[in-house]
């Protein structure tokens, strides 16, 4: 018998897992490349199964992002990504949902949705690529373009006052607000990780360069030669200090922040503001979002990360749970009947009914009361065993004959070999037919053993053996545990778990032999839960009352 090896622990994810086999079609030199590769490095570190990531985007250059990530992706319509993301998160709160948007997509056509996502604090991460330009439509000014910005649609300079993305987010009561820059992957990675850790909507503005239509959008603060003096790195609990010589800082004069230099006018470090990203009052972080070069250094890092506001989906799930607690899991029959209804009898006589408690006396058998049966009453009539099956319908499946599972998911006519066939033949058969277990028959065509992939691995791969001359008899598992197809699925599970093997021959009424594996059984259970043939409702799997 092939012993069941210890289950290998899930292989660690790597950035490579997130790189799909497609050509990235952003312009050479685009800031998006750095953001993409940072995300591909950060995702494997988050401890989230790869299949649980969903990336949702709208329209724009940045919104092509989902196609360049080997995760579930939803490239939606202009500005509406937050709405789709919210629907995804509501339908399955276990998913890690990331919205990729830009200054046009997120702050112009989709600003309304972004605002409502933030105020609801849905547990979704929003990365806004801000390059102050419409790239995909070839260079028109955007809601973050500066006054005077000349573009094809503002030949005399933009007269639109720009919006500050982080100020916008805070005014929508955002619980997590941060800024990072495409030219600093390390910084980006830290900010993305902080965003991922946050429970609630995390909003990240990325200062991103558009090499074609707005090259150098941020170089006045991000260029290597000036960045130390023009960027203010925010660190929780640390004073607001910046500058090549770490001697500049921000302090308050009345209600106004001002720049001060250590040593000048008796300024000392302890006069500087100390960064508090957890301040429940958003006034302080709002003040930071209003500070920009050239009047101030431009702050980067986490501005605000306030935990404790329960995310929207948690509140929704809580309402669902408490409704179930108060009223019980809904029974369709009750809903169809409504609070008041009436009964018409054979003589066209009418009697009013209301939802008042039913009399305990049972006059009709449950089978005849169908959709409007009082399930509680029926339950009371059943034996304990019947009750258990009703409560935990999977038990019912365990009582079914294994033949059902064999027919639906198992191998009805497995490949078979004679005891004298060579090991090489069997290995080739595995490879060519995509099977992982075969039967071995003697000269009377009676089954005498089986060979599984594990047999091959354990008994062939390790030994020096001439596969062409060695008969399969040498590596087969002789006289495997066998069940008739009338045996229950429960018994099959029992055999699998005691014997620690993964394949089992099943003898049918006509004496022919099929094969069933543990995987087949799992799929069969899954099918039964989902197709309800024989009424095993999916919800009941989760019923823990």
């Amino acid at each position, binding site marked *: 018998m092939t012993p069941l090896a210890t289950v290998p622990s899930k292989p660690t994810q790597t950035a490579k897992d997130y790189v799909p086999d*497609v050509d990235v079609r952003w312009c050479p030199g685009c800031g998006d490349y750095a953001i993409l590769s940072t995300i591909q490095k950060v995702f494997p570190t988050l401890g989230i199964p790869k*299949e*649980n990531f*969903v990336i*949702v985007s709208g*329209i724009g250059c940045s919104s092509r992002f*989902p*196609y360049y*990530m080997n*995760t*579930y*992706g*939803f*490239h*939606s*319509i202009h500005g*509406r990504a937050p*709405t*789709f993301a*919210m*629907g*995804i*998160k*509501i*339908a*399955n709160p*276990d*998913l890690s949902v990331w919205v990729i948007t830009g200054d046009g997509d997120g702050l112009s056509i989709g600003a*309304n*949705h972004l*605002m*409502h996502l933030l105020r609801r604090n849905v547990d979704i991460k929003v990365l806004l690529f801000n390059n102050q330009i419409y790239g995909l439509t070839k260079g028109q000014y955007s809601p973050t373009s500066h006054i005077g910005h000349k573009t094809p649609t503002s030949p005399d300079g933009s007269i639109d006052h720009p919006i500050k993305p982080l100020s916008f987010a805070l005014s929508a009561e955002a619980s997590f607000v941060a800024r990072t820059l495409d030219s600093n992957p390390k910084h980006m990675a830290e900010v993305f990780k902080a965003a991922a850790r946050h429970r609630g909507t995390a909003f990240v503005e990325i200062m991103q360069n558009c090499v074609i239509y707005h090259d150098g959008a941020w170089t006045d603060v991000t260029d290597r030669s000036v960045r130390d003096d023009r960027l203010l790195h925010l660190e929780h609990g640390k004073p607001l200090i910046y500058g090549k010589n770490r001697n500049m800082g921000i302090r308050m004069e009345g209600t106004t922040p001002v720049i001060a230099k250590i040593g000048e006018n008796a300024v000392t470090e302890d006069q500087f503001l100390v960064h508090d990203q957890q301040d429940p009052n958003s006034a302080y972080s709002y003040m930071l979002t209003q500070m920009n070069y050239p009047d101030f250094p431009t702050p980067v890092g986490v501005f605000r990360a306030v935990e404790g506001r329960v995310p929207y989906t948690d509140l*929704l799930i809580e*309402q*669902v749970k408490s*409704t179930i607690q108060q009223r*019980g899991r*809904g029974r*369709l*029959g009750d*809903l*169809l*009947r409504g609070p008041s*209804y*009436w*009964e*018409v009898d*054979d003589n*066209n006589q009418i009697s*009013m009914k209301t939802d008042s408690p039913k009399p305990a006396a049972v006059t009709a058998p449950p089978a005849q009361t*169908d*959709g*409007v049966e009082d399930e509680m009453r029926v339950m009371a009539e059943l034996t304990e065993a019947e009750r258990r099956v009703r409560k935990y319908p999977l038990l019912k499946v365990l009582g079914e004959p294994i033949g059902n599972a064999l027919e639906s998911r198992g191998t009805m006519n497995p490949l078979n070999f004679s005891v004298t066939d060579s090991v090489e033949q069997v290995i080739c058969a595995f490879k060519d037919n995509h099977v992982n277990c075969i039967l071995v028959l003697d000269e009377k065509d009676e089954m005498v053993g089986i060979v599984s992939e594990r047999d091959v691995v354990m008994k062939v791969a390790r030994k020096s053996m001439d596969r062409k001359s060695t008969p399969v008899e040498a590596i087969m598992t002789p006289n495997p545990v066998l069940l008739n197809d009338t045996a229950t699925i429960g018994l099959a599970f029992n055999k699998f778990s005691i014997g620690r093997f993964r394949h089992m021959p099943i003898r049918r009424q006509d004496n022919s032999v099929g094969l069933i594996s543990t995987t087949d059984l799992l*799929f069969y259970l*899954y099918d039964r839960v*989902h*197709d*309800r043939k024989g009424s095993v*409702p999916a*919800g009941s799997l989760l019923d823990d009352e």
Partner: protein
Amino acid sequence: MEHSTMISTNDAPPVKRPPKELSTAVVRFAGDSGDGMQVVGDRFSDSSAIAGHDICTFPDYPAEIRAPVGTLPGVSAFQIHFGGNEVMTPGDEPNALVAMNPAALKMNLPDLAPKGLLVVNTSQFTEGNLKKARYETSPLDDPALDANYQVIRVDLSGLTETALKDSGLKRADKVRCKNFFALGMIYWTYDRSLESTLEWINAKWASKPQVAQANGDVLKAGYYFGETSELIGDRYTVQRAKIPKGLYRKISGNEALAIGLVAASHCSQIDIVYGSYPITPASDILKYLSAYKNYNVKTVQAEDEIAAIGVALGASFAGALGVTGTSGPGLCLKSEALGFAVMTELPLVVVNVQRGGPSTGLPTKVEQADLLQAMFGRNGESPVAIVAASSPSDCFDTAIEAARIALTYNTPVILMSDSYIAMGSEPWRIPSVNDLDEIHVRHVLPTKPRKVYERDEDTLARQLAIPGTPQLEHQIGGLEKNEEGSVSYDPDNHERMVGLRIAKVERIARTLPPTEIMGNPQGKVLVLGWGSTRGAIISAVKRLQEQGSSVSCVHLRYLNPLPQDLGEILSRFKTVLMPEMNMGQLNMMIRSRYLIDTVSYTRVRGRPFLIRDLVDRIETLL
């Protein structure tokens, strides 16, 4: 002896005339928005149903929540048709009208049947109220009124106050009960038991016994007033309907639709996520569903119509069935996302409870003028399935059917309802849960690599892999894709995918039941309708069939695709008449599809068809 004189023949009370028997009757309550007309209408409907009548109701109220008291725009009305035959419309004209003030009289008197019963609340016929209703002299003084109708002048406010003089209520609270006085009088007129209404009153104001007592007393006072005052000349008993054995309830279209969606979730074992933005007359669907959180339903009141459909479609991508509900103006806003649903081939149900348009139009009035918008209101070749409900209770079955199509074919489905059936109600035989058909949904399992646009051979539906399933990571979006799911601008591929999306929707026709013809399968005239006109059309056609006319009717639930047998059926009739509450939208579709010379009969008056109008129109073709 004094006793003997009291019963002497001379002084004997008049012998009560026996009530007249009617097959059906129509009653309308009309008053100011604040007069509680919808409440008494509802009570009358319930007690009618319980008394064994078939019923059909028509609440008709203004778009303004509280227009100035006593004015014409502030009039709110409730009409109910009840009786022994199958009642399929709220009735062409009321046999009895209660008018609580001059404005209500002015708005509703033209509809009252000749010699009909008219109860007016004289206490409201003050100079000021007459002026608000734009009467120069009191209509109650016009001798023509008594010549044409059976007029009962009652001081409803005064009598109600008198009945409650010992109740301890404040004067304003006493007067507020006057709607129940009117209801009591109508109950007496139609020989109706008070029992179920008294029960309702006690349950409704269980926490305010004083109010319950007052309303109950006033109801009785109205009833006894009818009995003792002898003002009302004739009493009526209306025939009971022959109703098949079973359990019944009264249901409105919006509630039936909400319950239908829950039932669809039960049948498919797929959760419902309902995203919606409040809009008349669809808001109640969200109201109902948000109370069903223990039925695998999640609801979101979204920030706008676009977000509502976005939430729904996102949920569908994640494995639920997304549903969004709206009315015409909202459907305009959802157009782009609807096209996106077509492109991504995800299941989605969009409920459009139609109202008068264009633009804000007539928010509380009925019209069915969004059909071509549903068919074509998107950019590109963008086919969606369309189904239409034809009565309040039919909203239940149509909702399940819409969900079945959406989940089977992974396609958006537009479900057309309208304000008339959404707000109207009728008795509904409660179906058995066990009789509902299963909706078979199977998502792709993580067993083997598959193509994103791999299709089921029968349905052509794209097979869905749900986020959270290992090994099936993929991306979909609004850009055209090839079968593998990669973005493709290849001309051949685009042409093939456009064709496949259309063919998929056409495939739905294969699973539709045969089209039912009411009447002979061939003849002179076929009346072809869809949506809420069903009741009026069937009633008119039946009336003519009883007179021996060669007329039949077909009523469509499936508008896209149309049933496969429809063309052949249409060819068997000399003339096809198509009544619609629009300017001939289905007519345009039928003419272009079957190349036949149909006759269009259109009404856009914000009101349902009258049976007699249909009868007259059909007769011109016979």
